């Protein structure tokens, strides 16, 4: 069928018309082969302009369209939609930017006109080789993958799960509950952590729309909002590893925190002196199934008569405050006092962090119960025959020391070790403290930079259980509004394909694909593109020496023709 | 009876004048011919559209860097030429082009085919060393007298089909005693007459064929026999002849009749896995590993023999100096004789493989 090209130059008001001699351009264009109509228009993007284009396509029976106007970023979609409305495949169209790339970057009208002519000629050459491409769509997958079975992950799963939305909750260890399960008491109301968590877990397990995978880890997550392809490997002890593949529409990372390693600060004696514990050690001690069956005991088996609680261990080194330690330290006061009558407790702190409406009283109650608060810098925890000595320097510079039976350190909270693995897997940035970064500190606190991936709980920064739950709810909210079951996802049309007869299996394309969209077929010994995951970046096409990998809409003939004309 | 124009100019000048005339008058949009390239005395085919660029053209330069038929086929493969183009080609290239057209590998539409009675070309090696210019005087002497020029390629020395078939225009060079002063342009077709209409020149009675031409044909035939005997083609020992072949496939790449987009030997169709080699090794104690020279050469001969022109490019480009032209000429000749077929003689003469009937088998084998 003969080609009938239409070429339209937009005046863009005065933006283009004042610089480029459009009539001269049209005179050249009209003489080119297969151009059946070439004209100018004041403002093609306007309602009238679009209607004009649509009519022209139909009236002139155009098979291809070239529009010379502004940046594709601005109006490529606009004109592609016009083509569609006129019954012309939107990929048989080329938009030439003679505004930002031409009229706006020179004051020399002659040069601008000459360049515009070259650009338009190049686009005409190129569009000859365009092929009709069909839009692809797929239904978004409403299911969700939650990584991390702590309180944040559990809460997010409970809210999201529904008959038309399955939740996969993947937990690395053998049991759900995370850190909360190992806090015998929770501040401020001193309720039982295990009991609270057990209740939530029971609710969760009753929910048929949540599949819990313990002793499991997500090994591969590829894709985008609405379509993530997940591979989970489950390995129970002494059992064979089992692999599971499934699709979800969104991923929630709730990988939690670890305490920073107090052994890295030798002045505190952790790991070298008896009876120096971290907060998590102390929590374990207080649990009925803990190492001392819930009794607070020293290494020698005796209950301590005195305890020092050292705040901000590692705060200076880390450069941030872990927010919740002060509050849970007051919880420790009550835990010590309720078990050990007359126990002497001293807090060593530089600042107290007591935000929140219920918490001031929590602190004041501690003070009133006789707990000492010494504002100082702890220089050393020393050991000896008579137990431990806390050596400190007060604000004024005066040195002091305090003999105690037990020292409890409050180390900085860090994001858990797994965060890095997921950051790399999903291409999410980590902030300079190592936490998974939220998209925007103020305006988007639970979404990550990658659409469809959310970061909640201590994975994104030190916070309390209450705050983690708020974030779980927030992420659920965002997911629920983005992934409506039945909503269609538009997939990339300009994807890459690999021609089997050319592919010789060198795997270079696999290595350079940033989206994991290429896999290797061992039977045929060739690379294969997953067109759903492909974003059309073109890395593979550029890297393939034989031309087996080809990018639709950016084929060698198309680019060659365009370049040839531009360089002429 | 073809019309012949006589121009009072040397042959090359004459041809250049014709080409210039065609371009300047807009009778053709481009001229395809040999042109000077680089500073080392090399030539290459060019499509010339600007008459002034003809100054670098050397249409009768005795060197054939590529087969023009391959180039013209490539040019017209996707679509025929929409504009008239004059193409200056050698008789063997013209025959090759005919063979390619029979296989739908191009189109003759809008091509004005200009050829000449051909004195042959020098080996590529000679051209590479820039030594052709010193040989030119001797070359043209041989052309005048209808002799075989010294040091000409063996394939050319053995060529008896140096009078072009199917050319629109033929320059009568061989046997023209005054070839440096005078030239005869034979207009074979109506098309040729139309294109040449307006060219200054007197009508003449001469024609390309002559007694000198006939005697040269006889000389060439004799020389062919000599060369083939020298080469020992009757005791053709496949292993010995191809012993040095490194399967570079140069012969395949330059041969006009090798037109496959993806040669069988590129397709992986001949690849074996290691177990196959191990099994073969088990049988005889050794197994040669690909590339396999004899298999390649024989398969290529199977495929091209029927249309082998004897242009000799294969031997010219062989890096280990296998006289492939002799092999091709002999096997090609034998196959073609069996079917009474001369490649390139007639565009309407179908390829034997497409017209062969079962009952012909006995006759062929005899």
């Amino acid at each position, binding site marked *: 069928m003969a080609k009938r090209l239409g070429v339209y130059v937009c005046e863009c008001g005065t933006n283009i018309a004042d610089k480029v001699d459009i009539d001269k351009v049209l005179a050249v264009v009209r003489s080119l082969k297969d151009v059946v109509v070439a004209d100018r228009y004041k403002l093609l993007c306007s309602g009238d302009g679009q209607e004009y284009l649509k009519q022209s396509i139909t009236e002139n029976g155009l098979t291809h369209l070239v529009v010379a106007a502004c940046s594709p970023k601005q109006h490529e979609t606009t004109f592609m939609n016009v083509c569609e409305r006129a019954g012309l495949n939107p990929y048989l169209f080329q938009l030439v930017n003679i505004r930002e790339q031409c009229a706006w970057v020179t004051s020399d009208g002659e040069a601008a006109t000459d360049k515009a002519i070259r650009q338009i000629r190049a686009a005409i050459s190129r569009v000859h080789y365009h092929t009709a491409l069909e839009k692809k769509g797929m239904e978004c997958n409403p299911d969700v993958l939650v990584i991390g079975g702590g309180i944040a992950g559990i809460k997010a799963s409970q809210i999201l799960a529904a008959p038309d939305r399955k939740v996969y909750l993947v937990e690395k260890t053998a049991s759900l509950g995370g850190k909360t399960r190992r806090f015998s008491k929770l501040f401020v109301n001193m309720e039982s952590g295990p009991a609270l968590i057990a209740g939530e877990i029971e609710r969760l397990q009753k929910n048929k729309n949540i599949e819990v995978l313990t002793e499991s880890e997500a090994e591969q997550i590829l894709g985008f909002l609405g379509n993530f392809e997940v591979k989970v490997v489950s390995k129970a002890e002494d059992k064979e590893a089992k692999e599971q593949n499934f699709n979800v529409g969104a991923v929630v990372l709730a990988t939690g925190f670890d305490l920073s390693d107090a052994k890295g600060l030798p002045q505190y004696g952790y790991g070298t002196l008896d009876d120096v514990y971290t907060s998590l050690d102390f929590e374990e001690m207080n649990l009925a199934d803990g190492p001392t069956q819930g009794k607070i005991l020293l290494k020698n088996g005796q209950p301590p008569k005195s305890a020092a609680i050292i705040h901000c261990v590692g705060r200076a080194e880390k450069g941030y405050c872990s927010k919740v330690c002060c509050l849970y330290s007051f919880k420790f006061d009550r835990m010590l006092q309720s078990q050990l009558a007359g126990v002497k407790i001293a807090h060593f702190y530089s600042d107290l962090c007591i935000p929140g409406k219920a918490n001031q009283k929590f602190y004041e109650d501690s003070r009133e119960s006789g707990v000492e608060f010494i504002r100082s810098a702890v220089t050393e925890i020393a050991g000896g025959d008579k137990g431990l000595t806390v050596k400190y320097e007060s604000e004024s510079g005066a040195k002091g020391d305090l003999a105690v039976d037990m020292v409890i350190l409050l180390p900085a909270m860090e994001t858990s070790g797994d965060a890095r693995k997921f950051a790399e897997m999903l291409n999410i940035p980590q902030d300079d403290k190592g936490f998974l970064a939220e998209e925007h500190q103020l305006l988007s606190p639970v979404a990550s930079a990658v659409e469809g991936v959310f970061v909640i709980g201590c994975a994104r920064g030190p916070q309390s259980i209450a705050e983690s739950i708020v974030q779980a709810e927030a992420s659920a909210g965002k997911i629920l509004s983005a992934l409506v079951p039945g909503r269609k996802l538009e997939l990339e049309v300009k994807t890459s394909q690999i021609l089997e*007869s*050319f592919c*010789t299996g*060198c795997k*270079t394309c696999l*290595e350079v694909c940033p989206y994991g969209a290429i896999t290797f077929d061992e039977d045929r010994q060739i690379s294969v593109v997953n067109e759903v995951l492909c974003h059309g970046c073109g890395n593979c096409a550029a*890297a393939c*020496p034989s*031309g087996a990998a080809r990018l639709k809409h950016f084929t060698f*003939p198309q680019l*060659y023709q365009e370049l*040839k004309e531009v360089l002429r | 009876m073809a019309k012949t124009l006589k121009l009072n100019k040397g042959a090359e000048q004459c041809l250049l004048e014709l080409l210039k005339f065609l371009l300047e008058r807009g009778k053709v*949009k*481009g001229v395809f011919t040999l*042109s000077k390239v*680089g500073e080392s005395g090399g030539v*290459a*085919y*060019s*499509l010339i*559209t*600007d008459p002034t*660029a003809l100054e670098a053209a050397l249409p009768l330069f005795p060197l054939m860097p*590529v087969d023009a038929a391959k*180039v013209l086929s*490539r040019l017209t*493969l996707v*679509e025929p030429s*929409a504009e008239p183009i004059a193409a200056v080609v050698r008789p063997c290239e013209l025959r090759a082009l005919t063979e390619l057209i029979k296989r739908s590998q191009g189109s003759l539409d809008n091509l004005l085919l200009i050829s000449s009675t051909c004195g042959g070309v020098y080996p*590529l090696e000679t*051209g590479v*060393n820039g030594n052709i210019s010193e040989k030119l005087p001797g070359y043209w002497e041989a052309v005048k007298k209808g002799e075989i020029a010294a040091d000409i390629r063996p394939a050319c020395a053995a060529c008896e089909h140096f009078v072009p078939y199917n050319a629109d225009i033929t320059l009568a060079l061989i046997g023209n005693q005054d070839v440096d002063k005078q030239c005869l342009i034979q207009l074979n077709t109506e098309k040729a007459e139309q294109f040449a209409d307006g060219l200054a020149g007197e009508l003449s009675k001469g024609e390309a064929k002559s007694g000198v031409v006939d005697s040269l044909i006889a000389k060439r035939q004799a020389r062919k026999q000599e060369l083939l005997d020298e080469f020992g083609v009757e005791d053709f020992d496949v*292993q*010995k002849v191809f*012993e*040095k072949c*490194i399967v*570079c*496939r*140069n012969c395949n*790449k*330059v041969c006009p009749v090798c037109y496959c*987009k*993806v040669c069988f030997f590129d*397709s992986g169709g001949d*690849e074996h*896995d*290691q177990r196959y*080699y191990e099994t*073969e*090794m088990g049988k005889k*104690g*050794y197994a*040669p*590993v*690909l*590339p396999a020279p004899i298999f390649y050469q024989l398969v290529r001969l199977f495929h091209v023999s029927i249309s082998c022109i004897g242009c000799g490019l294969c031997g010219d*480009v062989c*890096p280990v*100096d296998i006289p492939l032209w002799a092999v091709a000429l002999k096997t090609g000749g034998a196959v073609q004789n069996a079917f009474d077929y001369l490649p390139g003689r007639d565009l309407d003469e179908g390829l034997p493989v497409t017209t062969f009937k079962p009952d012909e088998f006995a006759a062929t084998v005899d």
Partner: protein
Amino acid sequence: MAPDDKGALFPAEGGVRERVIAFLQKAISQGCFDAVLIPARAPGTDSLTYSLIGAEQLLENAYPLPPVMPVQGAKAISSLTRTGKGTKKIAALIRPCELRATVELFKLGQVDLDNIWLISIDCPGALPLAEWAKDAKKAEDAFAKILKEGPNEDIRPICQICDKFSTTGAEDLHIGVPAGKASGILLIPNSPKGEAILECLGITAGEDLSGWRERVDKLTGARVEKKRQAQQELEAKSKGLDKLLDTFSQCINCHNCMRVCPICYCQQCFFDSDNMQFSFEDYLKRAQAAGGLRLPPDTLLFHIGRMLHMSLSCVSCGACEDACPTAIPVAQVFSLVGNRNQEAFDYVPGRSRDEPPPLRVYQEEEFEEVEQSHAAVPAKQEARDG
């Protein structure tokens, strides 16, 4: 990169060829490997074809270090292993440049080394293919002289500037010719597989390699200097579009260089594919734009494109130059461009089986480094030229 420099002396008599064959025969008889992949001559001919030889006595026809390199060993190994592994243990006896090309092909998925033992050997160079083609006997005699006395001016230009003619570190075993000894060869293992060969032969790596290493280092140093000079001259002669066009002016687009190049592994070359299929109108328009168009066109584009695709892995083996029918110094030009590009990425093709090709691990941030490295070339060159 010098390996650990432990080696064993394998006792054998005769010329280098005889000694190596003796070693291979012993190794096969002891079961160190089941067969050898090596150039071999069919009796009564001049042929040199890579063959898989399992029968000891047939190894008499083998040609380790043939006078020319008709087929690049890496291509032979690829033919053998590309489409499927075998069951036998096969030792491939190849020149160092063939080894380096094999390693590159291995990284590109075109060679499977699981059942292959790579054995390289000190290489004095190779003669131009055309000489052997003209007169095989004369070439053999000339090469026998080289084997005995060391490399001379007869070897190919690319061999004359080769500084990687000995161990690379990526082979399993390397064969060295001991200094000042009329018999024996040095077996230098460079991997557990190589060590297994020595173990199998019942010899220990206790030989003093200092004499041999000294000789190798000395010649390497001389070659490095010669290369620098030669490349400097070549650059002056061929740098810049005009000079490059001139250098390639005689090219007839046969693509032979690509065909014989071990690194060119594409099933169908991009430049032979439908991507380069244009309409007559395209050709005419191009011709009209310049007044004329050389046909077939894009000769230089082919060479530059090929450089783009393979220069980072170019091992300077010279197969391309041997195959060129119009005597263009292809290997020298490609080697020059290859070396420069490789320097920019700190990459030496074939030196390690684990070092990924730069294109695969290249990160955006490195661009500046690479850019500057190229900009630094004139400065580096000035420093080199003193």
